[in-house]
C-alpha cells in the first residue's frame, strides 16, 4: 500500500465508522444502468436544469427586479435617453456592460429552450415505450408536474426583462386569467397588484421565478430521480433481460464517466448555441409600454401551441347576469390545456383500466407492439403540432407568402380532422410493422440475391436472422381483450352497463395486433 492509498483508506474508515456509509456506497456504486440513447434524454433535462441554476444565479447579481422608472443612459445608442423600467435597463446593462453578461443571458435562455425540449422528448420516450406503467405511475405524474412547472417558469423568465415582447406576453396572460368566469378579474388584480400592467408584477414574478418555482423544481426533480434509483431503470427487451433483473453498466466507472462527460457535452452544446446564435434580443424590442405592440409577437416555443389555440378560436362570447364569458379565450387557453394535462397525468391509470393489467412492468414495449398507445401518442403530437403551426401563422404567412386567414382555417379544420387521421395511419403502420416482424421471423431476412431455378423460376435467398433478433421479435406479450360480460354468473344484468361497454370496446381496440409467431410455428420452420 502506498502512503496515499493508506491516507485515503484511513479517511474512508473514519467516515465509515461514524456514518456506516460503506454498505450504502457499495450498493449504490454497483447499481446498474441499462444503456440506450433514449435513456439519456432525462439526463439532458437534469443537466440543462443545473446550467439554468448556475447561469440564473449569475444573472441575479445584476438584474434589478423593479418597475421603477429610470432614464436609460447606457452604451446602447438607439435607446439612449428613453424612459424605461429598472428591470429593462438592468437587462440592457447585463447585455452590454457586464462582462460575459450577454453570453450568460443567452446561455440561460437557450438552456431553458433545450430544457423544455428535452422534457418533451423524454416524456415521449417514456410514453411510447410504456415506461409509465406500474409501478412508475407516480413518477409519470411527477414528470407531468415538472413539464407544467417548466411552462410557467419559462413564461415568468421571459417576462422578467420587461421588454416589449415580454410585456405583450404578460398582457395575454392577464387576459387569460381574466377569462376565468367570476374569479378571473380578482385573481388578475391580485397577481398584478391592480389593473394591468400595475407596478407589482416584476418583483412578484421575480420571487416566483428565482425562488419558489426553482425550489419546487429541485424538490420534485430529487424525488423523480430518487424514484428512478429506487424503482430501478426500465430496460428494453432482449436476451437475458427479464422483469426481475437490470442489464447494463455499473455506475462506476463506465456509467459515471459517460454521464459525467455527458454533462459537459450538454453544457458545450448550449454554450455553442449561445455563442453563435442570438436569442431574445431585448434591445431590439424596446421597453414595454401597454400602447405598443410588434407584429409577429410570439411566445417561446413551448407556449406556442397554446398561443396557436387561442389564435384559431372563433369569437365566442356570452353575456349573462352582468358577466361576460369569453369562450374564445376560456376554451383554448384553459379548458383544452386542462383536459390535455389531466389526461396525460391520468393516462397510466386509464390504460391499466382498459387492459385490466395490474402487474408490474420493468421491460419496455417496442412502440409497434402497442398500436393503440402509439397511435394515441402520434395523435396528440399531431394536435399540438397543428396548434404550434398556427401559433406562428403570421411568421409563416410573411415568409412563405401565404394568407394568414387560410392558415387559420387550415388549423381550425386540421386540429379536428388531422389527429384522428394520424391515429388511424399510425395504428395501421404499427400493425404493418408487426406483420413485417412476423415475416422476418418466419422467412428470415432478404439478402437481395436472386436464384434462378432449373425450371426458370426466380427466388430470392433468405437468411435466417440472429438468435438475439429472433428473441426480440417474439418476446413481447399479446394480452387478449378483457372478457367483460353484461350479465353476472346468475344471468342478472350487471350495474354500470355503459361503463362496461366502453371498457370492453376500448379493450378490444387496444388488443388488436398481428398474432406473433408461436413456438409451434417456429418448430415447424426448424423442421424445414
Amino acid at each position, binding site marked *: 500500500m502506498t502512503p496515499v492509498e493508506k491516507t485515503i483508506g484511513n479517511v474512508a474508515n473514519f467516515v465509515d465508522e461514524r456514518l456506516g456509509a460503506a454498505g450504502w456506497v457499495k450498493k449504490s456504486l454497483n447499481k446498474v444502468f441499462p444503456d440506450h440513447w433514449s435513456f439519456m434524454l432525462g439526463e439532458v433535462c437534469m443537466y440543462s436544469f443545473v446550467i439554468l441554476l448556475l447561469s440564473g444565479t449569475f444573472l441575479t447579481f445584476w438584474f434589478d427586479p423593479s418597475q421603477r422608472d429610470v432614464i436609460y443612459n447606457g452604451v446602447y445608442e438607439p435607446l439612449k435617453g428613453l424612459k424605461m423600467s429598472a428591470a429593462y435597463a438592468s437587462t440592457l446593462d447585463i447585455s452590454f456592460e457586464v462582462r460575459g453578461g450577454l453570453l450568460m443571458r443567452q446561455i440561460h435562455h437557450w438552456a431553458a429552450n433545450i430544457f423544455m425540449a428535452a422534457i418533451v422528448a423524454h416524456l415521449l420516450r417514456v410514453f411510447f415505450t410504456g415506461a409509465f406503467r406500474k409501478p412508475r405511475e407516480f413518477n409519470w405524474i411527477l414528470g407531468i408536474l415538472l413539464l407544467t412547472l417548466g411552462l410557467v417558469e419559462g413564461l415568468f423568465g421571459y417576462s422578467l426583462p420587461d421588454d416589449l415582447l415580454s410585456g405583450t406576453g404578460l398582457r395575454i396572460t392577464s387576459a387569460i386569467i381574466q377569462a376565468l368566469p367570476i374569479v378571473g378579474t380578482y385573481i388578475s388584480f391580485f397577481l398584478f397588484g391592480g389593473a394591468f400592467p400595475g407596478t407589482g408584477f416584476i418583483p412578484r414574478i421575480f420571487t416566483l421565478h428565482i425562488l419558489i418555482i426553482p425550489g419546487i423544481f429541485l424538490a420534485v426533480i430529487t424525488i423523480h430521480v430518487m424514484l428512478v434509483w429506487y424503482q430501478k431503470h426500465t430496460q428494453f427487451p432482449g436476451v437475458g433481460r427479464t422483469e426481475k433483473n437490470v442489464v447494463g453498466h455499473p455506475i462506476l466507472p463506465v456509467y459515471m464517466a459517460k454521464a459525467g462527460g455527458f454533462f459537459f*457535452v450538454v453544457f458545450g452544446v448550449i454554450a455553442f448555441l449561445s455563442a453563435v446564435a442570438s436569442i431574445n434580443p431585448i434591445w431590439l424590442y424596446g421597453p414595454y409600454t401597454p400602447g*405598443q405592440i410588434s407584429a409577429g409577437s410570439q411566445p417561446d416555443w413551448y407556449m406556442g401551441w397554446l398561443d396557436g389555440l387561442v389564435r384559431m378560436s372563433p369569437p365566442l362570447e356570452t353575456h349573462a347576469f352582468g358577466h361576460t364569458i369569453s369562450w374564445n379565450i376560456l376554451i383554448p387557453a384553459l379548458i383544452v390545456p386542462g383536459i390535455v394535462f389531466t389526461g396525460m397525468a391520468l393516462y397510466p391509470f386509464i390504460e391499466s383500466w382498459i387492459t385490466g393489467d395490474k402487474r408490474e412492468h420493468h421491460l419496455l414495449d417496442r412502440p409497434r407492439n402497442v398500436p393503440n398507445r402509439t397511435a394515441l401518442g402520434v395523435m396528440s403530437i399531431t394536435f399540438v403540432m397543428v396548434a404550434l403551426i398556427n401559433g406562428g401563422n403570421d411568421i409563416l*404567412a410573411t415568409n412563405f407568402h401565404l394568407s394568414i386567414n387560410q392558415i387559420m382555417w387550415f388549423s381550425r379544420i386540421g386540429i379536428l380532422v388531422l389527429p384522428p387521421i394520424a391515429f388511424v395511419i399510425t395504428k395501421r403502420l404499427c400493425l404493418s410493422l408487426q406483420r413485417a416482424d412476423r415475416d422476418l421471423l418466419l422467412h428470415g431476412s432478404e439478402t437481395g440475391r436472386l436464384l434462378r431455378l432449373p425450371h426458370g423460376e426466380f427466388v430470392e435467398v433468405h437468411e435466417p436472422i440472429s438468435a438475439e433478433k429472433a428473441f426480440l421479435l417474439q418476446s413481447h406479450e399479446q394480452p387478449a381483450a378483457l372478457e367483460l360480460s353484461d350479465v353476472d354468473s346468475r344471468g342478472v344484468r350487471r350495474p354500470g352497463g355503459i361503463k362496461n361497454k366502453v371498457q370492453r370496446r376500448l379493450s378490444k381496440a387496444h388488443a388488436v395486433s398481428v398474432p406473433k409467431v408461436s413456438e409451434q410455428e417456429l418448430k415447424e420452420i426448424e423442421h424445414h
Partner: protein
Amino acid sequence: MKRLSRYRRHKAAGPFILIFALLAIGTTFSVASATVKQAPTTFARSAAIDEGKQIFLKGCSSCHGLNAEGGSIAPSLIGVGAASVDFQVGTGRMPMADMSQQAMRKKPVYNAEQTAALAAYVASLAPGPAIPDDSVLNYERDGNTAQGGELFRNNCAMCHNFAGQGGALTQGKYAPTLMGVEPKYIYEALITGPQSMPVFSDKTITPAEKLSLIKWIKSAEAEPNLGGATMGRIGPVTEGLLAWILGIGLLIGIAVWLTTRAR
C-alpha cells in the same frame, strides 16, 4: 451734388422722384422675378407632363383609365400627388406584375426620368403631396435615433415588426420589410399611405419626427449582430426551431454515439 440739390425745391422734383422710384422698383422686380420664374423650365415641365401622359397612356391607363380616373380594379390617381407616383413606380410596385394581394417591391420598370415624367403628369391633374426635396431628407443631421425608435414602436411596429422586418396582414396582404428602403421612399410612404398603410400626415408625425423614424430604421438596418446569428429578427419562432433542430438534434446524436458499444 450741389448742382442736383439746387433742383430739390423744383416743382417737378416730387413727380420725378416718384416716377424714378416706381421705375426702379418695377425694373428690379421684373429682373428678380424673371430669374425665379425661368421660362424654359415651364416649357420643360409641360414637356415632362406630355411625356408622362404618353407613358401613362401606354403603361397605366388600361387599369387606371385614360384620364387617371380609376376603374373597377384600380383607384383614381387624381390628387394622389407626385410623391405617390414616385413611391409606387420608383420601388417597382407599379405597374403591378400580379394582381393577387398587393403590389410588391420589385425591379422598377421605368427609369428615373420616366418616373419623374409620370409623377409630373399625375401631379398636373390635381394638387397632392410632392416628392420631398433632398434638402428635406437630411435625416442624419435632423433625426434622433432614440425618439425615432419610440415613434416606430408606437406607430409602425404593430405591422412592420419590432425590427422593421415586416409582418403579416389579413388575407395574404403584408407589411413589407423596411430593410434596404431608400429614405425618400420611406418618407413618401409616410405621407401617401400606399396599399394598406395609413397616411401619417405632418400633423400626426411632424416632418422632423419622420426624419427621426428614418434615422432609426437606418440604424436598425446597420445594427450589428450583437448576440450572434439573428435568424431573421422575427422573434421566438426561429429560436424554438433552432433549439429543437440544432440543440436537441445534436444532443440526441451525441447520446446515440455515447451508447454505441465499442466494437
